């Protein structure tokens, strides 16, 4: 696993907070592009920005779920970035929600109607709400207060969060489109590894490690 060790050596030199910086720059940069209607935002910036933030949030959730299997299967250790990835995912999803609420549907009444009447909006909203206790306890104090076992149990909420987010995307697509299906499959496989230990790279890493 020389390659994995080299990668790990490189990763050790990158502080975890770079994830927050990169996430913040990405959100602001995309907003700026949308505001000035540049590139993909040329004609209809609202819908494109909404989708861009939504997809970025989903990617971060998938990457967060990838950390443990990646370590099991390849030995590449990204565990120190996982909290930052998860918290950044929350803020990107929040940006997605705000674009939807403020720029897209534009009224509290319509927001409520959409959440109640449209299952894909409902499920997206549930996914966001489930992220709130996770982001609120993504600090060392909370880990100590809750205790490791309880904290880990609580943070298994990332599974339904990612599942609902993937369904949310799948559900809003028109016709047979590849991207939402690809994300749904990725989330499905990553969740399956949690419940089917046989899928883990058993020969190399016997110990289950921290979840």
């Amino acid at each position: 696993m020389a390659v994995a060790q080299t990668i790990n050596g490189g990763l050790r030199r990158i502080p975890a907070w770079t994830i927050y910086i990169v996430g913040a720059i990405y959100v602001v940069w995309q907003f700026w592009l949308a505001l000035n209607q540049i590139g993909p935002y040329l004609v209809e910036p609202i819908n494109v920005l909404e989708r861009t933030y939504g997809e970025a949030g989903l990617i971060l959730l998938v990457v967060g779920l990838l950390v443990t299997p990646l370590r099991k299967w390849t030995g590449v250790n990204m565990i120190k970035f996982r909290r930052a990835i998860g918290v950044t995912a929350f803020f990107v999803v929040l940006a997605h929600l705000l674009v939807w609420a403020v720029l897209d549907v534009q009224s509290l009444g319509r927001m409520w109607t959409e959440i109640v009447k449209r299952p894909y909006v409902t499920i997206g909203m549930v996914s966001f709400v489930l992220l709130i206790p996770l982001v609120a306890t993504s600090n060392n104090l909370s880990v100590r207060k809750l205790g490791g076992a309880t904290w880990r149990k609580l943070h298994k909420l990332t599974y339904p969060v990612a599942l609902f987010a993937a369904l949310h995307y799948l559900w809003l697509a028109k016709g047979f489109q590849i991207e939402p299906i690809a994300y749904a499959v990725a989330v499905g496989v990553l969740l399956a590894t949690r419940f089917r230990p046989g899928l883990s790279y058993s020969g190399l890493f016997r110990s289950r490690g921290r979840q």
Partner: protein
Amino acid sequence: MAYRWTNDLTQADVTPKAAYLNRRQILAGTIGLGAIGLAGRANAQDLEPNTLEEITSYNNFYEFGTGKGDPAQNAHQLVTSPWSIKVDGMVDNPGDYALDDLLAGLSVEDRLYRFRCVEAWSMVIPWNGIELADILNKVGVQSGAKYVAFETVVQPENMIGVQRRVLDFPYIEGLRLDEAMHPLTIMATGIYDESLANQNGAPIRLVVPWKYGFKSIKSIVRITLTDKEPPISWNVANAREYGFYSNVNPTVDHPRWSQATERRIGGGLFASRQDTLMFNGYPEVASLYEGMDLSENF
């Protein structure tokens, strides 16, 4: 037989070419000419046409990909010349018509129409087109015909979306004969007095302004007169969500989103929503659907 329908717009509403080529450039630069153009259009009630740039860069044409920018990027590969249209079914003069022959002698009119997508966005488009009724009269509709079916070209090697099978191509559409013969219904061949861009459905497409945009089928190669309601692509793909009629109707929601409001393209990041109008603001077609339950026949 043309000019059955009177545009509620005047010559003053025609936009100077410089203004439609790039509105934002005008705003930033040559203020004089731009100001004249914008003032002229402000009189056109709320029907300020979208710029050619907007109309040609934000499209649904799944044969070229599902992203709104994909058609503009990929449609240049479409071969539009020579172009022939097969006219068959219950007509007096069936056959494969070269496009020019089919349209010879018919009047091309300017039609400034609202265009409302089923996805709840809209544009205003200055089409140039021929009333479909003129074309149908030319080929001679037989007395038993009740519907018109249309088919889009399939050029698999030039249409990258066709291989992805997002829909069951070729794309097909249809109208009831009285809808097809309505003077609002046109076969468009141009926008802003220029030939249609490929992503807009070159060289000829249907435009039915009171129906959701997907009814206005693009790049037509076949017109069939029939006595049975023809299948239409989106209904075949998802019958619960897309009906044969698909009239713009703010009171009948799409199962996954509201149709009560729409976003007019061109307002930027802070564009506000506006109310969607019944039949997209063309109440003159209401009589076509008298006695029909429009939430049943959505």
